[in-house]
């Protein structure tokens, strides 16, 4: 047995993150950890990797009891971990980043390390240029750096926390091949994912966590995704599989020949963006992270200005308007970063509601009516099933999915005319994602125009009436969902637009 956990527990104030979790991983086994947000998956991985110390329980490594003193110790034992959020220095090269991660004694010379990196990259087909600065790499390439960093030593167990969340379908497929190759050489893999079909395709065994406890385990190849979802969520949940299309009405938001020059080294140049958003429709934009989504959202929000082109809302030009002025006209944006942009972590939910809601309610002549704001906050918590101790809880003590439900609820409750939604369900569990989808459809049916930017293609096909993709700051044609095949969308994401025109009026 490569790894065996016996009754591992970890308690935080007010919650039990892991309650007597036991599991076994054989050499060469790919083992999935499934569970909702807040089920305790990440805490469990961090305990194995020594980032967090367990309160109770035992851990066996190659049939011997060990107590992991920290990540450095875990690495010595032959473990590696790829975190959900990369820990790389953007201004250093790939080789330098990897050298920083190793013990000084392991780095004989930078040239030798560089060769070693190239050899590992070659062996696993992880193409990478060791001399590139990490800041200039795509997200997928940065993840490769993280993985190579683990493989550079003789690795026995690789832990990956939602590795495919940031990848294109093709990149995700490639990663799965790499992991299979790695497993065939005897390395065990622990794999956290929300995407059940991936688990199905890749994993030998799966352990399901719910509220910190092991609620079941299964062999994914012999279990349907629906059954696995039931293990994760319990039986009470029904998932909506399809939605009916929206009734598209008059034109609301129009972008004409927009160009935004990059304002820093890492920004993307948006070119010739033409996009029409109508009442009662959802437009979905696919695309790999870092292809201009951030810039497009900032542009629509009013944080950055276009160098050329026109933006109109119901025929009125909004090009020169500020964020607050646009919001007053009925525009709303849900950003990708929940803590830090969409919400202030150290403020409570009532204050976070006021953050954007001050446009529509709760203030008069610059004075705040806290009672009204708090009333609305309670309403959002209740309607959007936000799991919290109340409207006075701090935003950063909510789990990611719950905070996302709150932020979406906050915007939808303001009844916006146009809603821009970036990664509406990133890192959100199946149940919460379903709720968010239903709310977005309901808002659309009330006559709002919604733009969804997402990397989750299933989600885009589920929600959108029209689909397009962003690649390198350019927009593909945006056409009815039924006319866009998955292959077509994949080509658009790779920048192969079949015609010169970049948008169809619907």
């Amino acid at each position, binding site marked *: 047995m490569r790894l065996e956990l016996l009754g591992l527990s970890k308690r935080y*104030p007010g919650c039990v993150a892991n309650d007597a979790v036991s599991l076994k991983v054989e050499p060469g086994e790919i083992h999935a950890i499934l569970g909702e947000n807040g089920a305790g998956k990440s805490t469990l991985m961090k305990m194995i990797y*020594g980032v967090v110390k367990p309160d109770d329980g035992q851990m066996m490594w190659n049939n011997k009891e060990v107590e992991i003193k920290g990540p450095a110790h875990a690495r010595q034992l032959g473990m590696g971990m790829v975190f959900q959020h990369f820990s790389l220095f953007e201004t250093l090269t790939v080789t330098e980043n990897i050298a920083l991660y190793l013990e000084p004694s392991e780095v004989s010379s930078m040239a030798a390390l560089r060769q070693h990196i190239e050899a590992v990259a070659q062996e696993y087909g992880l193409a990478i240029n060791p001399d590139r600065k990490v800041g200039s790499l795509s997200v997928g390439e940065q993840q490769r750096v993280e993985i190579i960093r683990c493989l550079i030593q003789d690795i026995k167990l690789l832990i990956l926390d939602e590795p495919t969340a940031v990848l294109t379908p093709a990149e995700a497929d490639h990663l799965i091949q790499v992991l299979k190759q790695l497993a065939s050489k005897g390395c065990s893999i622990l794999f956290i994912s929300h995407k059940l079909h991936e688990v199905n395709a890749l994993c030998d065994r799966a352990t399901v966590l719910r509220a910190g406890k092991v609620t079941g385990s299964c062999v994914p190849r012999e279990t349907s995704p629906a059954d696995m979802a039931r293990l994760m969520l319990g039986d009470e949940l029904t998932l909506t599989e399809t939605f009916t299309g929206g009734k598209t009405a008059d034109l609301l938001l129009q972008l004409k020949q927009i160009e935004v020059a990059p304002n820093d080294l890492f920004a993307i140049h948006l070119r010739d963006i033409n996009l029409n958003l109508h009442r009662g429709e959802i437009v979905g934009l696919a695309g790999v992270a870092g292809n201009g989504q951030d810039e497009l959202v900032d542009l629509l929000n009013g944080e950055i200005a276009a160098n050329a082109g026109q933006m109109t809302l119901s025929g009125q030009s909004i090009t020169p308007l500020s964020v607050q002025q646009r919001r007053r006209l009925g525009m709303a944006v849900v950003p990708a970063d929940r803590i830090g*942009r*969409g919400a202030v972590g150290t403020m409570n939910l009532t204050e976070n509601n006021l*953050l954007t809601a001050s446009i529509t309610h709760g203030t008069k002549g*610059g004075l705040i009516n806290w009672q009204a704001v708090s009333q609305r906050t309670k309403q959002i918590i209740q309607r959007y099933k936000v799991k919290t101790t109340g409207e006075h809880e701090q935003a950063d003590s909510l789990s990611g999915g719950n905070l996302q439900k709150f932020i979406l609820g906050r915007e939808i409750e303001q009844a916006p005319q146009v809603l821009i939604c970036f990664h509406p369900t990133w890192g959100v569990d199946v149940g919460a994602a379903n709720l968010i989808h239903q709310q977005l459809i309901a808002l659309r049916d009330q006559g709002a125009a919604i733009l969804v930017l997402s990397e989750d293609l299933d989600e885009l096909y589920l929600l959108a009436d029209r689909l397009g993709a962003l690649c390198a700051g350019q927009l593909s044609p945006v056409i009815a969902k039924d006319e866009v095949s998955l292959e077509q969308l994949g080509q658009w994401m790779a920048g192969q637009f079949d015609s010169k025109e970049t948008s169809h009026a619907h």
Partner: protein
Amino acid sequence: MRIEKRLQPSRTMVLMSPVLALVLTLLTGAALFKLLGHPAGLSLYNYFINPISDWYGVSELLVKVTPLLLCAIGLMLCFKGKVWNIGAEGQFIFAALISGYVSLQLLQAEGFWVLPVIILSGALAGMAWAGVAALLKTHFGASEILTTIMLNYIALNLLLWGVHGPLKDPDGYNFPESALFTDQTLLPLLSEDYRVTVAIYIALFMLAVVWFVLSKTLFGFQIRVLGESARAANFVGYNSKLLIWMLLLFSGAMAGVAAVSEVNGPVGQLIPTLNLGYGYAAIIVVFMGRMHPVGILIASFLLGLTYVGGEMVQIEQGMPKSIVGLFQGMLLFFLLACDLLIHYRLVLPNSAIPSFSSRRSKQVVS
């Protein structure tokens, strides 16, 4: 040995931290007195009790509280927005120079408008000095911490130039001091027997205003958002540059009014030793007061006491002048130390997993 972040710092301890810092300061102070050969009990009595044992003593405390509180009110708003204005001292001195100049021009003027004009000139001068830092920050991205500290020294040298040069009293036997202000340029006293002026009312009024702004207005909310997360403030479209300007200008104005309260109050002329460090002490007031209006009111009395008590032990026991800075420094040091240990905990090497405390903490450095 290393430190790790506590998952949830105790709210009670966050509020108790200033009290703890005070107790530690008193204990250390007692030990220090003992070492210096003074009886510890008597010295502490002379420092903290004797000065306020009669009404005159209390009134003298209020004389110190007035400029401290005025400076602290402006700084509190700045610090809420994480605009680290360390320059209340310089804004105070520059305002003293300008309002002193205006006062000297109005020595013979009559009318109800004289004092408002002087106060206004002080406020405007403080704003101008803070405005330099605001300009440097918003247009060139210069850290306001550095610029405001540097501006403090420039202001001090301007004051020295003034009292040694153009503003020197022609009949002053060549002392580096301005002429004495006349009655119409001095702030009215609350009572003939004491030196407290109406400026204390201005301070209390402004304290109430700031409290209202922070808790009830959208503007106050925007300041807090800017302080907690500048990126969130940008996302919702708050005008960060405008907020930074307003915060610095407001705290500059408050430091300016503080200067008038001192120069056109108990001092009554421009002198080279105007700066008793109120602008620096006000920083301690804001942190001791936990950035809350009631808290800074209490803390301004405590810091005021370090001044009057310091004078008392100099007179009674012949202690050095630096005793004031020593006590203020200890207060700040212990406060920061307490805050650190409230938000983080020490982990000793080779200690077994402490099951009791590990529940309340999470490791941040790995």
